[in-house]
């Protein structure tokens, strides 16, 4: 599939590249391939490349002298598919406890959607989600692939303190709060794993293009994993898959 891209200069030191305004896995692959190629091209310079659903932002550590020639260079880099190296995604198995101790909005969610709690858990944990990018908070994953039966508008007023690890649904999205933070999504469970650790580099094992599967665990299972994490004996399960 060929995409029409738009190049623009955002400020003195960054360039924005935009794809069509859609959320699409094939397009994500195209974006991530290009992102890798840009990283490779600039491996010796200080350059940051971030992506979202339909854009790439290149942030240079220096001012851009000539944006037009930079666009030309990027355009030919995009067309030259020999620069593309597919990185193999991981599927991460993220344990979630949907017990009502954690899933504080489950009952309300169940009433509004006219689904039983076990149906919600099944629909939420059987899907394989795609990580589009990380944003909003350190370690917050933007996941695609939520079953449309679980779509529910976010709360009208956000809760001031959503607990770290909360697994929630907001609109057409689902996600995990990596830290305590305000949030307007409906909380259906909690994961004991640490998604973000500023003492390791990179601080997050999961990256854009990876997959996530939620694995339901019991309350006891949750406490066991918590203990293992405290004793540094827990490793998040993942399998590498062929793209």
């Amino acid at each position, binding site marked *: 599939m060929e995409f029409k891209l738009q190049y*623009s*200069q*955002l*400020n*003195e*030191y*960054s360039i*924005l590249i*935009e794809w069509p*305004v859609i*959320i699409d896995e094939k397009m994500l692959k195209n974006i991530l391939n290009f992102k890798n190629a840009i990283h490779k091209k600039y491996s010796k310079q*200080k350059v*940051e*490349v*971030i*992506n*979202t*659903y*339909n*854009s*790439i*932002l290149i*942030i240079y*550590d220096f001012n851009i002298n000539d944006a037009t020639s930079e666009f030309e260079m990027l355009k030919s880099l995009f067309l030259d598919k020999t620069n593309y190296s597919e990185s193999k995604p991981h599927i991460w198995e993220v344990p979630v406890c949907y017990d009502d101790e954690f899933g504080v909005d489950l009952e309300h969610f169940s009433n509004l959607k006219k689904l039983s709690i076990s149906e919600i858990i099944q629909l939420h944990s059987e899907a394989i989600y795609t990580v589009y*990018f*990380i*944003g*909003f*908070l*350190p*370690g*917050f994953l*933007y996941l695609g692939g939520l079953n449309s039966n679980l779509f529910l508008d976010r709360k009208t007023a956000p809760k001031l303190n959503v607990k770290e690890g909360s697994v929630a649904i907001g609109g057409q999205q689902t996600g995990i709060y*990596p*830290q305590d933070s305000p949030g307007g999504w409906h909380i259906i469970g909690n994961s004991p794993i640490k998604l*973000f650790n*500023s*003492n390791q*580099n*990179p*601080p*997050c094992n999961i*990256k*854009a293009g990876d997959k996530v599967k939620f694995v339901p665990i019991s309350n006891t299972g949750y406490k066991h994993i918590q203990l293992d994490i405290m004793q540094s004996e827990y490793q998040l399960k993942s399998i590498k898959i062929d793209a």
Partner: protein
Amino acid sequence: MLKVLKSGFYTSIQDKGRFGQRNYGVPVSGVMDSYSSQFANAIIGNSKEAAVIEITMTGPSLQFLKPTIIAISGANIQPQLNNVDVEMNLCISIKANDILSFGRLKTGFRAYLAVKDGFQSPLVLGSRSMYKAITIDNRIQGGDIIEYESYDVNNQSANATIKCINEIIELSTLEVYKGPEFNKLADDKQKQLLEITFKVSKLNSRMAYQLEPIIENNLEQILTAPVLPGTLQLTPSGQLIVLMRDCQTTGGYPRVLQLTEKSINILSQKTTGSNLKIRLKV
């Protein structure tokens, strides 16, 4: 070592920021006014990377336990060394146990204290910039001890001869680029943005500055997209939000304008009620 006797209103350690971590949702952070902080570093011959103390509105009270040299730039908060006034933008010699304190804010909003070779607080993900969720604290507290290398004042050769242009403090026009969604605005709204005088609202922090008045608009929300310090978002309810150094890496509000680096520095020195104009960079 530096002992924090009193912390001031909002005092934090900052450097150039956490470059290279935005892919993990980590804000870049770093000094709000990069011009003034670089200036403080330059006076005492530091590299641009050296960590400084960013002082907001009300100054801290600090005791230096080892000899060194320092410089203070940016907002004038009337610095005093052992209760005697000292000059801004000059190299100041420090003896062990000297106490630096500050008076009332006269100009600007943020001052920068640089020490020879920079403050040696822990590096987290390549930066010493304090930010909640990354470092233990997001600001320094009374009783904190901050490391720095001792420096023999006699090594200091001639006085600094760099001329300080304090224009950042005085300026009130923000130069901007058109943002990715600027052209989706109706003509009269585009004009309005570039013509009216804005005021800094009381909602202003290291994360974002809100401006008044409200600009009514019918822009639709966008698919979550990259944002940067200096991105000016216009919400559906008409709020103008200028993202600052601690801002999130992505956002869902239309990005109508983008401030230049210099304009971010200018805005960093403004406080509640300050008047501002916006001018398109040509």
